[in-house]
């Protein structure tokens, strides 16, 4: 059973993450979600 929490939980965890692990098979959907919640991977900050 998948645990469903407040939507902000995943968003804040993704925003605070030191690394994002992305699914090869669903890369477009994963990228789209990250963009929709304005999450930027920290290793992308220059």
């Amino acid at each position, binding site marked *: 059973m*998948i*645990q*469903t*929490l407040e*939507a902000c*939980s*995943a968003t804040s*965890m*993704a925003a*605070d*993450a*030191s*690394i*994002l*692990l*992305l*699914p*090869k*098979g*669903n*890369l477009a*959907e*994963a*990228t*789209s*979600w*990250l*963009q929709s919640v304005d999450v*930027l*991977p920290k290793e*992308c*900050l*220059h």
Partner: protein
Amino acid sequence: MFCRRSVFTKDDPRVFREGDIPSLLLDPDIERGFGLAGSDSIAEISPRLRAQLRIEDLGRSISNLRFALMALVPNTETVRKKIDAGDPIIIGTSNPATVGAIALNTAIDFQVSAVYGGQIEKLPRLLPRLDGIIDLVDSGKSCRDQGLEVVLDDLQTVTLCGLWALEGSQYY
């Protein structure tokens, strides 16, 4: 400078098979990692891993992906009659946990008899004991190419999930 439109390619070091993401999140070298995966992969995570992860369904359907029951074209009517009669339906799949959930939801007696990692659509020709397969379909082309027809569609949709390690959890 922010790269807001970062584009990940499949060669990116952060891009993995979905089935490997849960254990990677628990690797001692990965601190504060966050992973994304489809609910179809999440459903197959072992209880041991699941107990150490927080998983959140993000409520976003993944394209047109859904689970369907498929059978070889000559057998579809027989399979429909077996379902109507409440007989067991012998299944091959890559997603045994999902099939278990579908059996509960539909009250159809799906019995998993063969579990393989991929190319499930080839199984019905190879293993005549199978009534059919339960697998993910999108356009359904690869199944049609193998002579299969959808008997029951939309058994379960696939959504995107976010996951991360609970504090103090470790796989190795």
